[in-house]
Every structure is written in C-alpha cells, then in structure tokens.
C-alpha cells in the first residue's frame, strides 16, 4: 500500500474515533461532556486531527488544486483552530502567549443601580476581572399576559381587572363597579393630620401596590389596597377579597447595561435573551432573572468572543466549498 492509501485509512480511523467520542459525550450530558472534551487526552486528539488536515494538503494534490475541496478542508481547520483558542484549555494558553489576563466564561449578578467588574467564573476558580465596569441601569421582564387584580366574593363569584390605572368596570350580577385608581411603586404610610395616609415614597426599596375603588350597587364607594407581595387577605366587614395575580408567560427578560470606563459611560444598550451586548472582547448575555426585597436581580453571563469569528468564517467557507463541490458534480451529471 502506498502512503496515500495508508493516509486514506488513517483519516477514516480518526473520523471514526471522533464519532465515537461524540456519542460518548452525548451520553454524559453537556457539563461532563465539556470537561471530557477539554481533557488532556482529547487535547491530544484535537491536535492530531488538526495535523491530519494539514498533512492532507501536502499529500493530496486535489486538496490544493481543486479549490472547492481546498475550501472544505481549510474551513474545517478554521473551525477547529477557532474552537481551540476559545476553549477552556486554549484560552489561558493564548493569554500567556499574549501576556494578557482574561477568562472564557462567567456570571455577573447585578441589582438595579449596581456596578461591578468582578465576574464569578463558571469554572468555579474564583473571580475574573474586566478592565472596565458594567452598571445595571434598569432591569425588567416582558410578559405575554398582563398582571391583574383578582377579586373574589364570598359566594365565589370572581372578577379580574388589569393591574393598571383604568376605567370603571361593571362587576358581574349587578354588584356595582370597580376601578384601579392609583398605582404605587413604593407604597408607604405616614401621619397626615393624625391619620395614616398612603404616599409614594421616593427612597430606595420597592413595595408595589394598587389602590382600588369598589362601588357596591346602591352603597357608598369603598377604597382598598392590594399589595403585589402580599397574599390575598380578608378585609373587615367586606364580602370580597382581592389579590394581585402576576403575569406568568414570560416573553423576554431585559436589562439596560452601561459600560463605564474612566468614570464615563462609553456604551449603553438593553440586552435581552438572544441580544447580547459586545464590548472589549466579551459578550454580555441576559441569563437569569430574579426578584428579592430590593427589586430585580439580573444575572448576566459574560463570555469571551475569542475565536468565534474564525469559527463562523470557517463554517461559511466549508458551506461554500460544499455547494461548489457537489453542485458542479450534480450539474455535470457525474458521480465521481
């Protein structure tokens, strides 16, 4: 057998091994598979694969001369190389080479108004530092459905009104009308002329509340408050209860981020799932979202973009090469 024939078979073996590893990885689940594919034996395998591609260009004239084939295999090299420099193992290696200090992936947890440049690394190896600061200016959730106030009468009749200042609405069975008359972002009480009076507090914190006026048929109006963070409660002498019903079908999580360098805002953008912010070699993604007593807490995943463009160009080149290679074969009507 000639060297070329040996190499033909070597390629088949290596691709088969790659396939077997991938099947193995699929049974591991994403997290363990990632560790497996970054392990030392696999690093050797990636290098071997890369080497095989390069040897291929020297050994097979067609890979050099027929440019669709050149594109397909050069594209594979690009994807592989781009993946390697951006990987968990490759990233620090490239850093050492460039004399830089960076990280591949981590999480930044910010409350409204908070800023930070410390990123908790996903690898669990401490903190990564950004060379700039990120501030969470605003964070909110968009829903498919709307928040509502749910009113339930003692005979189990119930009724919902949108949780926003609105029109007077008729209750079922001619019971009268109900209307949301005021919305508080931070509801507080204070003494005014000896009476406890609600007001919208300016200080930080949040206690969303709704003022409603219910007019029972033929009786004087009754005012009451519904608090977002309090469950349904009974009100003395009244035959109804009310509670806030949060919307459930999340459409999108959004955070407005500011990038701060040397005291000034250099970039501001609202990120959402599928729409990251890019700055200084990192992409910032909306990752998690929660509420605590102080308001929204936005979990932002930060990931290095190293090698990504090489990978995408590689993919594009492979695809173009494939279309040329097979397109011309099919058009010519020859299968070889």
């Amino acid at each position: 057998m000639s060297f070329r024939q040996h190499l033909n078979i070597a390629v088949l073996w290596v691709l088969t091994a790659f396939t077997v590893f991938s099947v193995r990885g699929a049974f591991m689940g994403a997290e363990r598979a990632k560790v497996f594919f970054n392990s030392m034996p696999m690093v050797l395998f990636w290098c071997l694969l890369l080497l095989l591609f390069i040897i291929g260009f020297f050994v097979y004239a067609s890979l050099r001369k027929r440019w669709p084939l050149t594109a397909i295999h050069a594209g594979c090299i690009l994807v592989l190389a781009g993946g390697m420099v951006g990987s968990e193992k490759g990233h620090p290696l490239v850093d050492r080479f460039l004399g830089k200090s960076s990280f591949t992936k981590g999480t930044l947890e910010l409350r409204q108004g908070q800023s930070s440049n410390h990123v908790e690394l996903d690898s669990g190896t401490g903190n990564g530092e950004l060379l700039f600061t990120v501030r969470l200016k605003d964070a909110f959730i968009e829903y498919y459905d709307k928040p509502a106030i749910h009113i339930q009468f003692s005979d189990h009749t119930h009724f919902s009104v949108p949780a926003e200042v609105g029109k007077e609405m008729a209750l079922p069975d001619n019971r009268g009308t109900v209307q949301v008359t005021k919305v508080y972002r931070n509801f507080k009480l204070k003494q005014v002329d000896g009476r406890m009076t609600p007001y919208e507090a300016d200080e930080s914190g949040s206690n969303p509340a709704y003022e409603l006026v219910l007019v029972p048929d033929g009786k004087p109006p009754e005012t009451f408050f519904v608090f977002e963070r309090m469950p349904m409660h009974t009100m003395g002498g009244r035959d109804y209860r009310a509670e806030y019903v949060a919307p459930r079908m999340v459409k999108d999580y959004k955070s407005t981020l500011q990038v701060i360098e040397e005291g000034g805002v250099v970039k501001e953008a609202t990120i959402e799932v599928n729409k990251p912010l890019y700055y200084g070699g990192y992409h910032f993604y909306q990752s998690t979202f929660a509420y605590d007593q102080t308001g929204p807490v936005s979990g932002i995943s930060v990931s290095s973009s190293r090698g990504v463009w090489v990978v995408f160009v590689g993919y594009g080149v492979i695809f173009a090469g494939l279309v040329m290679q097979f397109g011309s074969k099919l058009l010519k009507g020859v299968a070889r």
Partner: protein
Amino acid sequence: MMMGEMRIKADIQGLLIYLTMAGYLLVFLSAVKFSKLAKVLFAGSFVLSLAALVYRWVVVGHLPMQNMFEVFLFLGFTIWPIHLLSKKILRNDKSAYMMIDAVLGLVVLFPAGYVFNHQPQYLPPALQYWLFGPHVAAYMLAYIFMAKAAVFAAGGLILYHDDRALNNTMADSGYRLVAVGFPLLTLGLFLGSIWGKYAWGDWWGWDPKELWSLVCWLVYAIYLHTRYAWPKRYQIHHVLNILGLVCIVITLLWVNLSKIFSGGLHNYAS
C-alpha cells in the same frame, strides 16, 4: 413531555393532516399503475399539507417550527417539492420513486397526526430569534434527503446481485442525495452555532443534541471518504448511508428518547 399516548386530533388541524395522509396513501397505491393520476394526487396532497401548515401558522402566530409536532408537520409539507427536485437530482422519473416518496410522507406525518400534542404554546425567550426557523428548516430538509438516500442504500443492499447497472444506479442515487443533504446538514450546524452564540454565549455547548447532530455529520463525512478510499465497495457505502439515517433518527428523538439525560439546551421540544 409532548409525547403522549397515541391520540386522534379531532379538529381542523387534525383533519388537514389526515387528508394529506390519505392523499399520500392514494399516491402510493396509484403510483405504478396510474402514474398520471398519482402525479395529480401528489400535487393535491401538497396543497393540503400547505393548508395544514398555514393553518398552524395562523393559530400560533409564529413560524411553526418550535416543537416536535410542528417539525413533523413541516416535514410532511416538504415531501412533494423535494420529490420534484429529486427527479432533477437523480435524472430519473421512475414511478416507483413516487411510491417511495409517498411512503416517506406518511412516515413523517404519522407523528404529527397521532403522536405529538399540538396545544399552542407561548414561545420561550430563547427561541425568539430569527435564525431559529432557518436553522430547523435546513436540518429538516437535510433529513428528508438523507432518508431518501437511505432508501436507495437499503435498496442497494437488498437488490445487490450481478446486475451491474442496477448496483451502480443504487450507489449513485444514494450519493447524489447525500450530495444535497450534506451541505444542508452543514448549514443547519452553522446556523445553530450562530443562534447558540447569540442565545447562550457559546457557539458550541457540548449538549447531547448538538453532539448527536455532529455524529450525523461525521458519519456522512466518513461515508464520503470511504467512497474515495474504496470507490467500488458499494455495500460498505450503503451500510454507512443507513447508519447516517439511524443517527438522524436518534438526534431527532433524543430529547424524547432519553428523559434521563435532561438539562440540555435543546429541551425546547418538551
């Protein structure tokens, strides 16, 4: 999990699917004896499948390619256009090919008609990305071509004998279909990577469904290189071609097959 027990869909959506399937069945029965009639029936079935798809689109208000039901519905709709295209690719217009494609139509519509639940769902945030539709569509088209390639491979294995011309036709047809399917498979992988980068920050996440789609891609790469190394070993080509389809089926159903390995990014089908 959307995979429930087998259930009839007693509504307009179900009716459109069942009518399309009935159409495909008639095409299958008439393809060889009354091929002119079968051609008309095939086109008619396509119109029905288009109606089923458009109906779904209107009901859910977005491109219907977000869950298993919609994916199989879409596959059922691609059968006739791919049938026409395949005649060009294969340079052949045998009525038996129409029969094969009609069966394929029945096979892909069966899960949409009887297995997967079609309750409309709100789209979770991660799926609201414009490349998501093209990503799924590229894969679906690739899968249909690969399924057809596997039919020829199976035919090649079963009918393998001294008839050189027939052996050549089977091997050649299988290759031609892979030659269309493989670039589409690559495109699906590519668009999925872009989407992954935008949605999760990683173009590759080592998630089981990703790895299975890589396995499919690699099996076809092995097939192509085996053809180069041993151009006349048709039986090996055929086996690899069929293995490719087996991997595709595993990829498609992985989330549903393995409830044990949960937590992957691609659980949108559940």
